[in-house]
């Protein structure tokens, strides 16, 4: 049995464990483990970029979930642990069997109509043969992201901006972030702080390396940006302050996004081969590399700002205790004397 099959079986078992675990905290931690196994699978399938992104997603999704539910379930999960899913008598048929049959039927359909032949390799050969001439660099994935499919990347960056703005403005409170440098209430374990003190500079260095070398090795703007955001989160956990103005970071992110759009459109219209042949005859390679590096740096900066804003928003606003005014407001919403 090959090692890939073993890892796949562990992967499926991890998913089943997630489904049949009823406690919320464990669910989230299992999701982190599941994502890491997935990341190993991606690495073995020959795609280190996606593996890195998946690992970053595992970290950030876990952090977001835990910050979000901490207020409502208590720190140790003792306050309102969800009861195990035990369907009441007579309802187990509609609760369990019908969904199971539905999913099994869909699975049978999927297996029946699954494409079996080899996929076309035309596009693969085209891209792999010409990307170093057309876009430059040595990483084909980065070349496709920033060269052939740059509009995809632009809209993806746009979606991230929209998400950040939505998170910043769609919360329960209309007020903006607490910018007063207030200390947080996180109970730090000294061992974790000690470890993070050692690791966080390495994380920053690693993120910078990923961004700057994104065009010749695995990595790129997104992965590096996430690593840099992780550095800021470590900094927050160590020193217990939020002294960075969230408004300024939002402004910075918006400006960076405008720069990304301008540079990408400029490169698409100006950086065509005919133009380059006349103008940058001797500097084509340098121009290409400079374009890739600048785009990677900008995207990394933007992603770092975005995740940083989301994290601060959750920590500073969502974990804040309710003021009495809001509590009474909520009781009015629920119709006076409800004590749910």
């Amino acid at each position, binding site marked *: 049995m090959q090692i890939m099959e073993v890892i796949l079986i562990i992967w499926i078992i991890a*998913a*089943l464990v*997630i*489904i049949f675990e009823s406690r*919320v905290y464990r*669910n*989230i931690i299992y999701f982190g483990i*599941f994502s890491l196994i*997935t990341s190993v699978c*991606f690495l*073995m*399938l*020959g*795609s*280190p*970029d*996606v593996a890195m*992104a*998946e690992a970053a*997603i595992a970290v950030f*999704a876990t952090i*977001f979930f835990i910050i*979000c539910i901490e207020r*409502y379930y208590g720190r140790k999960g003792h306050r309102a642990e*969800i009861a195990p899913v035990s369907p009441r008598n007579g309802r187990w048929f509609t609760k*369990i069997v019908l*969904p199971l049959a539905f*999913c099994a039927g*869909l699975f049978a359909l999927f297996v029946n109509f699954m494409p079996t032949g080899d*996929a076309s*390799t035309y*596009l*693969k050969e085209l891209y*792999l043969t010409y990307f170093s001439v057309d876009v430059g660099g*040595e*990483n*084909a*994935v980065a*070349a496709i*992201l920033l060269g052939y499919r740059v509009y995809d990347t632009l809209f*993806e960056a746009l979606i*991230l901006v*929209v*998400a950040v703005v*939505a*998170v910043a403005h*769609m*919360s*329960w409170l209309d007020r903006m972030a607490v910018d007063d440098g207030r200390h947080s209430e996180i109970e730090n374990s000294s061992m974790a702080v000690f470890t993070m003190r050692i690791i966080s500079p390495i994380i920053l260095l690693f993120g910078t390396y990923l961004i700057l070398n994104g065009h*010749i*090795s*695995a990595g*790129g703007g997104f992965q590096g940006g996430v690593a840099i955001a992780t550095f800021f989160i470590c900094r927050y956990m160590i020193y217990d302050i939020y002294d960075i103005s969230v408004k300024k970071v939002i402004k910075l992110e918006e400006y960076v996004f405008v720069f990304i759009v301008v540079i990408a459109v400029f490169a698409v219209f100006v950086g065509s081969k005919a133009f380059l042949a006349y103008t940058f005859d001797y500097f084509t390679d340098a121009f290409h590399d400079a374009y890739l590096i600048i785009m990677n740096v900008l995207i990394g900066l933007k*992603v770092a700002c975005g995740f940083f804003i*989301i994290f601060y928003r*959750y920590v500073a606003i969502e974990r804040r205790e*309710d003021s009495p005014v809001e509590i009474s407001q909520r009781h009015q*919403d629920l*119709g006076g004397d409800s004590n*749910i």
Partner: protein
Amino acid sequence: MFFIALFGLITAKNAIKTIVFTLVMQTAVIMFWLFLSGRTGTIPPIIYDPALLYDMAAIADPTPQALMLTAIIIGISVTAIKITMLNYLFRRYNTADWELMHKLSAQEEAENPYS
């Protein structure tokens, strides 16, 4: 895998679990695409040497990888928005149980229908 997650999604009673299962479904779709593109042991599409190009079958296909990278980033953005909405629901109903939430909102609507 996708269908396991779909089963979980249908049977989940908790809102947080719903979000987790959507993430699992997304992971399953990404895994499917990468399985289409490369087999085990293919080398990553980083061409530092043009001689590598003579054995085209040994290199993983870069196109699905780039697309899946985009999909992952969009997925985490959407997840952040979902968690914000979930926070809203938490603050409003103080529970994460879909059925309880539904009951509470129906009760609220019955009490003042024009709000």
